[in-house]
C-alpha cells in the first residue's frame, strides 16, 4: 500500500486542448459578442414594469367602482321617482279626500300640547276603557 502525501507529491491533471485553441477561441468569442451586440434584446426593468402594471390595475379598479356606484345611485333615485309617480297615478279622488282629512286633523292638534298625565290617571283610564283581555293574550 502506497502512502500518498498530497503536499509532498503534486499530481497535476494533464488536461490538454486542441492546438491553437485559445487563439481561435478569442476570435470565436469576439464574433459571438458582436452578434450579441446586434441582437441584444432590450429587457424591461422588471420592477418598473411591475409597478406600472400595478398602478394601471389600481386605476382601472377605481374607475370601474366609480362607474358602478354612479350607476346604482341613479337607479335608486329613478326607482324612488317611479314609485312616487305610480302611487300618485293609482290613488283615486276618494283617497285624496281621506288624505286631506287626515292632514287637516293632524294640523289641528297643537304640536306643543303638554299632557300632564300621571301613572294613576293612566291606570284609571285603562281600567275603564281598555280591553285588558286583548293585551293579556
Amino acid at each position, binding site marked *: *500500500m*502506497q*502512502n*500518498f*502525501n*498530497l*503536499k509532498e507529491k503534486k*499530481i*497535476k*491533471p*494533464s*488536461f*490538454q*486542448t*486542441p492546438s491553437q*485553441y*485559445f487563439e481561435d*477561441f*478569442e476570435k*470565436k*468569442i*469576439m464574433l*459571438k*459578442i458582436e452578434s*450579441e451586440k446586434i441582437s*441584444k434584446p432590450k429587457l424591461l426593468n422588471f420592477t418598473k414594469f411591475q409597478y406600472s402594471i400595478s398602478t394601471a390595475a389600481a386605476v382601472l379598479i377605481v374607475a370601474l367602482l366609480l362607474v358602478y356606484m354612479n350607476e346604482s345611485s341613479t337607479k335608486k333615485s329613478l326607482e324612488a321617482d317611479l314609485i312616487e309617480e305610480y302611487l300618485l297615478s293609482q290613488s283615486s279622488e276618494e283617497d285624496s279626500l281621506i288624505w286631506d282629512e287626515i292632514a287637516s286633523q293632524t294640523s289641528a292638534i297643537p304640536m306643543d300640547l303638554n299632557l300632564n298625565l300621571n301613572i294613576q290617571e293612566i291606570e284609571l283610564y285603562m281600567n275603564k276603557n281598555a280591553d285588558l283581555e286583548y293585551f293579556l293574550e
Partner: protein
Amino acid sequence: MNQEEAIFIAELKNPKTQQEAFSKLLRLYQKPLYFHIRSIVLNHDDTDDVLQNTLIKVFRYIHDFKGESKLFSWMYRIATNEAITFLKQKAKMSNQSIEAYIEKQISNLASDIYFDGDEIQIKLQKAIASLPEKQQLIFKMKYFQDLKYEELSEILNTSVGALKASYHIATKKIEAFLNHH
C-alpha cells in the same frame, strides 16, 4: 479594487473602448477560466461550451458589476455556476444523478484525446468525485490552481477559516482514498 482595475472595468463598460478591453480580458483570463471549468466538467468540448457561456455572461452583465469583489473573483463565480449548472443539466438529460454522470465522465478520461494523464491522475479524479460538491470545488481551486484562501473566500462566499478546514478535510479524505484504492 485598485485603480488599475477600476480603469479597466470602466473601459469594459464604455461602448467606445469595450471591444479592445474585452480582448485584453480574454488574453488575461481565458486560460485560467478554461482550466477551472475543465477541472469541473472534465471534457474539452463541454468546457468550450461553458467557457463561451461564461464569457458571454461576463460581457452581458459587466454593466451590473458593482466592483464589490475583484473582477477575477466575479468571473470565477460565474464560471463555477455555469459549470455546475451545465453538469446538472447534462445529468438530468441523461436521466442520471450528477454523481453517476461525473463518474462516467471520469471513466471516459482514459480514452479522451485531450487528456494525457496516467492511472494516478484518473484515481485522483475519482477520489475528488467522492467528496461533497463544495469540498470538491475548494480542493480543485486550491490544489490545481493555487488560488489563495482570500480569493477562494470571495469566489465561494465562505470564510477563510471554513475554507482552510474544508481543504484540510478534503486532502485527508483524498489521501485515504488513494492509499486504499
